[in-house]
């Protein structure tokens, strides 16, 4: 029975600050484990394909890949509903998928096509899905944290019983605006969960070189915190459920997700000058979030190795098809240059580089 409850212990205990941690025993189902495997595998495949597309010059500018960190996006989503809000930084492709975004609109956005989730106008760092309460996709390190607290403010103001998850990196964790927003959130008891995705490097800087105290779950000082194995999707799910309940009832909480990014920071970073190849392959071998679920699936006899291989093959095809479809999408129409500057443009004229050559009336 694919809906029969299974109880699985988290890889390591939670470490907590000013709060009692949740139980290590996580309830799941065979169906959920299979979904986790599928969702994370799709993400992994998408990111690897994005890498190739970048190298083929079909994606331009920055492109920050999430492979290695998939358990955070997937575990979080499993714990909450689409009425809860999520906001993250520029490493946003997989969060978009987790919120229900599809591969075609993701690839189309990466390639700057009309079918993109931001009609090609946002780019890699600016994915959104407002109908699923996904608020981006932000390029300025740290800025999404006060923004997320603002989403939580609105949730509370509207008396929704929902919460906001604001994700940021270990590098971002030192940003002052985070401490400002946390203080206000604590004063106003906003249902905000600050999720530090500690992948141990901010670009080329190891956490301890950027933070005197890299114990990010404790950096809220007077705000409770929980450290979570971010490579264990079940631990992430458990922590996010716990955090949501805490936040709705009591106000903000910090979650530190111990995770890892396999790729370099963005495409210009080989990702191997400031860390050893051994370190990377060690994580891949011992902590990979997909492999962990694969093992659980086998341990509970939910699928055979061949079945999972088939699924992976099918995912590969799904991703390739999506790319093909995205490539068919055309570039945004030139009139898009001037749409969405304002929601209400008052019919004012706006201009291109040569105002006597290119102009438009703002809608």
């Amino acid at each position, binding site marked *: 029975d694919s809906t029969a409850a299974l109880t699985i212990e988290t890889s390591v205990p939670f470490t907590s600050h000013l709060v009692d941690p949740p139980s290590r025993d996580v309830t799941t189902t065979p169906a959920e484990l299979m979904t986790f495997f599928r969702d994370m595998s799709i993400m992994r495949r998408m990111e690897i394909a994005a890498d190739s597309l970048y190298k083929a010059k079909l994606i331009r500018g920055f492109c920050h890949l999430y492979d290695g960190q998939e358990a955070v996006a997937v575990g979080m989503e499993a714990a909450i509903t689409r009425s809860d*809000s999520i*906001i993250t930084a520029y490493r946003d492709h997989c969060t978009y998928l987790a919120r229900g975004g599809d591969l075609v609109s993701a690839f189309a956005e990466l390639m700057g096509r009309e079918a993109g989730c*931001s*009609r*090609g*106008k*946002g780019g890699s760092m*600016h994915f*959104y*899905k*407002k109908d699923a309460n996904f*608020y*981006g*996709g*932000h*390029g*300025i390190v740290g*800025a999404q*944290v*006060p*923004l*997320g*607290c*603002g*989403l*939580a*403010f*609105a*949730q509370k*103001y*509207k008396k929704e019983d929902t919460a906001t998850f604001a994700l940021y990196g270990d590098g971002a964790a030192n940003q*002052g*605006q985070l*401490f*400002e*927003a946390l*203080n*206000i*959130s604590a*004063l*106003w008891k906003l249902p905000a969960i600050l999720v530090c995705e500690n992948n141990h490097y901010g670009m080329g800087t190891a956490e301890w070189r950027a933070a005197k105290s890299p114990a990010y779950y404790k950096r809220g000082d007077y705000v409770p915190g929980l450290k979570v194995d971010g490579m264990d999707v079940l631990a992430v799910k458990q922590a996010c459920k716990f955090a949501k309940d805490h936040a709705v009832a009591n106000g903000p909480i910090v979650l530190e997700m111990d995770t890892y990014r396999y790729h370099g920071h963005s495409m210009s970073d080989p990702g191997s000058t400031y860390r050893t190849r051994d370190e990377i392959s060690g994580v891949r071998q011992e902590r990979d979030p997909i492999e962990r679920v694969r093992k659980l699936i086998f341990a509970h006899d939910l699928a055979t190795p061949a079945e999972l291989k088939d699924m992976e093959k099918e995912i590969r095809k799904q991703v390739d098809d999506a790319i093909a479809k995205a490539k068919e999408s055309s570039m945004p129409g030139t009139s*898009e240059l001037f*749409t*969405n*500057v*304002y*929601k*209400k443009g*008052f019919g*004012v004229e*706006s201009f291109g580089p040569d*105002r006597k050559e290119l102009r438009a009336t703002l809608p």
Partner: protein
Amino acid sequence: KEITVREALNSSLDEEMSADPSVFLMGEEVGEYQGAYKISKGLLDKYGPDRVLDTPITEAGFTGIGVGAAYHGLRPIVEFMTFNFSMQAIDHIINSAAKSNYMSAGQISVPIVFRGPNGAAAGVGAQHSQCYAAWYAHVPGLKVLAPYSAEDARGLLKAAIRDPDPVVFLENELLYGESFPVSDEVLDSSFCLPIGKAKIERQGKDVTITAFSKMVGYALQAADILAKEGISAEVINLRSIRPLDRAAINASVRKTNRLVTVEEGFPQHGIGAEICMAVVEDSFEYLDAPVERIAGADVPMPYAANLERMAVPQVEDIVRAAKRACYRAVPMAAAA
């Protein structure tokens, strides 16, 4: 009937909060203290602490929270005690508010108002006297309004609050206490002024004077003096710095053939420069004299009263420039 600009702003806030429960006010000392400049007087009592929120002195944090709340459908009014402090939060105004609707192809609109006193007050020195009109109006995605009179204050603030886009609303501390006559229409709670439209405060035919905020009053005084000397000045109150009402400015200059721009901010890349460009682009052949720019001195604001007076435009500066534009001889002055 006369009301002060302070009353105009306060009543607009009150009426818009009463009309739309998604409108709320946040900022330093806006609640229990009734506002550093008492613009929010009485609102905490009337709307309670859920809708009138005193914040810590953390502009980046609370502005980000305001913008996030707007993402989620609320209509925040963020008060900066003065716009000088908006620099601590400017990344949120530009990158989080102004650009989101565009980057998301229209998914994430940001109905928010950033307001507070802007520019020079009296005797508050270099760090508390800057005018941010040109900076904010430089950036697409923002709308930038600057009221002069009580009518402006009511009509433009209501327009700003009702607008679905981020609006930077630049008040002036020295105008808060000034009274202006207002019609019944202006006092009606449905009153609203259009964004992007300038107002001809005074009709004239010899020279156009553009100004915004406090300088509109100076321009009107200058026009009185000029009238006595036989020069008929048309005074344009810009009201909206972005969108800038190029049509109104050009129409006036096509009539008068002469232009004086007035602003209190720093000159370089300022409001006057853009207005000059707008007229040169669209009405070059109508210009009978060089555009004259009157602006804040190109120095940080000094504290000493005599220097401060020299650093901001005076009525006589406007009069002199207008006469120059009209080719009336004015005695040349020595260098300072």
